[in-house]
């Protein structure tokens, strides 16, 4: 589905927004270095780059969240000083952030009008009617009366976009809008964006997901380390070219899977029940990567937690080899050789306020190697370990004494991988291992996971990214409502796997 060239009404028209040598400096970092850029009316303009390339910063300057340190911004030919988001909205510029700011117990309509109410008395029915009208005009599927806490993430995002449209925004900035969406929700969003473009709105789409950018953008600007390194269009470029522009070197997208003889079953899940799990059975053998594909919220988190002993089960067994791990507890399961890369590295991976060396030993801190004499930590041994890990896994840091919070997402994930793989595990449970990472880091993580297979380990890969599932898995299973609904070879057509993700059990047995 290529949308290139659909956005009509361009060409000679003067640009809507012009950035002229805009710079933004944070203490010690030049986030934007004389960036020049044009946004034209009625286009979807993708702004891509790795984490820290300055995409969000540039748009926050436009939205009045940061003052610029140099250069000028012109809107509709007039030079403007945008001192606050209020100024930006007055100029018809709106922004939807990665983290939504909605009041959960309020309805959609109440959230939309919040902060923009007329007069002292709320005319809720008028507001609801207006919200419904906007939603209809752009074919947004949303019920203005629905309470926000009952909405899915995709719907919440629609409410955020509606908020901007309600305020008469002409230029809509979306900061990594697909990071929180399922594939289906992403498609819905793109349909909405096309609708908005049709109506003449200008959309800035900040992303680092290249497939999506190629699918939805009219023009693409690539930033690297605060500078514009190129401007192109989907027709004139390719994923590989974009990635090279972003990273500054060629990037491999499909890694060769190592040929490994599949061995004994290492991890056996039998009829797991509890939480969202509803009779899930699965087996992972040595030297095999089993990819669990599924729309998020179908039990992925509970699956990983169940294997790691982090949640109680109502039924079923988790087997390591031929041993039932019931009652072992998380520490016991880890001691049996199971490593865990959690889907949320802040919530289940790292202690952000502890140092890198303290994080590096988490889970092994009571090994005799690292603590003695009734629990005295052997600090020098632990630091030795930390130095070795950050060296081997190329965690870029100034010191192992800094807190984990100070690392970028990619470096945090490398630290977790380093820690988890160091123990020479028999089984690796990797949940959403590349979430939020940029291209370079994704490549690194993928290589590490393939290395595990090459070393004869059993890998349970749980991911919402179909790309990732296809790139790494030897077998693909689909998870739907807490059960496995199908099993596919890695060369199965994606649509078929997609049907399994939606619970179509007839696809089973391929």
């Amino acid at each position: 589905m290529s949308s290139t060239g659909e956005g009509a009404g361009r060409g000679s028209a003067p640009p809507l927004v012009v950035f002229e040598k805009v710079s933004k400096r944070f203490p010690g970092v030049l986030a934007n270095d004389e960036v020049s850029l044009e946004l034209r009316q009625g286009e979807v303009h993708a702004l891509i780059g790795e984490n820290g390339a300055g995409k969000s910063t540039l748009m926050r300057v436009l939205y009045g969240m940061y003052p610029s340190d140099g250069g000028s911004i012109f809107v509709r030919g007039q030079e403007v000083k945008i001192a606050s988001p209020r100024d930006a909205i007055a100029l018809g510029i709106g922004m939807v952030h990665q983290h939504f700011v909605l009041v959960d117990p309020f309805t959609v309509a109440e959230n939309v009008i919040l902060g923009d109410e007329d007069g002292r008395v709320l005319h809720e029915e008028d507001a609801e009617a207006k919200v419904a009208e906007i939603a209809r005009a752009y074919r947004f599927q949303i019920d203005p009366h629905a309470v926000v806490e009952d909405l899915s993430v995709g719907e919440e995002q629609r409410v955020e976009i509606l908020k901007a449209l309600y305020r008469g925004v002409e230029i809509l900035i979306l900061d990594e809008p697909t990071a929180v969406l399922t594939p289906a929700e992403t498609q819905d969003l793109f349909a909405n964006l096309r609708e908005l473009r049709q109506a003449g709105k200008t959309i800035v789409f900040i992303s680092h997901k290249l497939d999506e950018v190629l699918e939805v953008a009219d023009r693409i600007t690539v930033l690297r380390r605060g500078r514009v390194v190129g401007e192109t269009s989907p027709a004139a470029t390719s994923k590989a070219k974009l990635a090279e522009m972003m990273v500054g070197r060629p990037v491999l997208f499909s890694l060769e899977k190592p040929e490994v003889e599949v061995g004994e079953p290492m991890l056996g899940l039998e009829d797991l029940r509890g939480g969202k799990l509803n009779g899930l059975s699965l087996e992972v053998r040595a030297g095999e990567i089993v990819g669990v594909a599924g729309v998020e919220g179908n039990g992925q988190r509970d699956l990983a937690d169940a294997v790691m002993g982090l949640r109680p089960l109502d039924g079923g067994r988790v087997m390591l080899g031929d041993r039932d791990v019931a009652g072992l507890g998380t520490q016991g399961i880890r001691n049996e050789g199971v490593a865990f890369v959690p889907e949320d590295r802040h919530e289940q991976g790292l202690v952000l306020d502890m140092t890198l060396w303290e994080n590096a030993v988490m889970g092994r801190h009571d090994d005799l190697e690292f603590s003695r004499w009734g629990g005295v930590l052997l600090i020098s041994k632990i630091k030795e370990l930390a130095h070795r890990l950050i060296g081997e896994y190329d965690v870029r840091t100034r010191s192992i004494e800094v807190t984990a919070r100070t690392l970028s997402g990619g470096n945090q994930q490398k630290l977790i991988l380093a820690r988890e793989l160091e123990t020479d595990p028999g089984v690796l449970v990797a949940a959403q291992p590349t979430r939020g990472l940029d291209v370079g880091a994704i490549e690194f993580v993928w290589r590490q996971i393939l290395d595990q297979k090459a070393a004869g380990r059993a890998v349970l890969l749980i991911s919402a990214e179909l790309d990732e599932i296809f790139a790494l898995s030897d077998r693909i299973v689909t998870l739907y409502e807490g059960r496995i609904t199908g099993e596919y070879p890695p060369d199965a057509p994606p649509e078929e796997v997609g049907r399994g993700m939606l619970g179509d059990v007839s696809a089973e047995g391929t």
Partner: protein
Amino acid sequence: MATTQTTRRQIPEWLESLVGQLGALLLALIIALAIGSVIIVLYDESPLDVYGAIVEYSFGSAEGFGYMLVAATPLIFSALATAVCFKGGMFNIGVEGQYIVAMAFAAAAALWFDFLPGPLLMWAAIVAAMIGGMAWASIPALLKVRTGAHEVVTTIMLNGVAASLVAWIIGGPLRYEETGGGYNVNLRTDPFADNAMIPDLGHLLGIRPSVKLTWLFPAAVLTAMVVWFIMRRMRLGYEARAVGSAPGSAQAGGISIGGVQIRLFLLSGLLAGLAGMQQLLGDQGFLPVGYEAGLGFIGIGVAFLGQNNPIGIIFAAMLWGVLARGETALQIETDVPREFVIILQGLLIMTVVITYQIAKRRLLTRQLRREAEVEQAPPPSEPTAGDEEVAA
């Protein structure tokens, strides 16, 4: 592989953090004293005279210094008790009840085991106090881990229970037997034998024994150091900080959250149990009814002021001791009412909390910036030989 660039390193992290914290403390002190000056001026007094008198009463004489340390001693223990729970993400508001119960335990030991020779009796009383504190702390700990009952609620409730329970104990099982000539209207226990008392330290420093500066003060300082070691260098402290800061990550790392919480509460109770010892075994030598001195609650303030750092707590408790001496100074030397000290204490806690937050945020910003520089500085690394193998 260019990773830790030790060559380009400026000052070490811990030193930077220490300097930042001391700076924040100094700033907080200056602001609090400045605001306090306004109040002093309203009383037609000179701030310099008033602050001078407060300082004079703690540092102007050996006795004053001794009194200040005596006031600081129990606060070190109660603040440590608050801090260890806080590090594990829990609020132990029950230090008050725990040390009251501990005093009853210690009194019982001192009275019942009076056959023990020499310092053994004192040690028996101290150990009994620790057990008493732990026993009382184990109730909210078990309730929290088993039933999820929040420790703030249970510990506050148990404070009331403790006060009543101990009053009953003093009026019942431990009630004095010598009537002492009929003038003894207050309920209390019998006086302890002399060898139950903690020996005097003051006379070695030329301070009158009546000041009651005992070996408990150095013991408190030593205890703070031991607590520092436990929290920074031992498994329990490591696990406690992980649980307190990121319970999900700690759990996924194999740490038993409930187990850590129980052990922390027991440690907290043990420390709380020592808070009452200055009065009981250093000074009074018997336990009267209604002896709750609010040490547990003051300890919360001292822990805050010391930012839950055991070493910081030593100094915070001494500062509190200076202010306690200041009350006397104000009454004798100035027209400013003694309640001014309470205002000053409140101001200090507020300003310290604020300046520490600012200092912390600045430190984090600086570190984030430096890490970002390191990450951006080296050119993107070429795929290394090891990586090539997979692709090939």
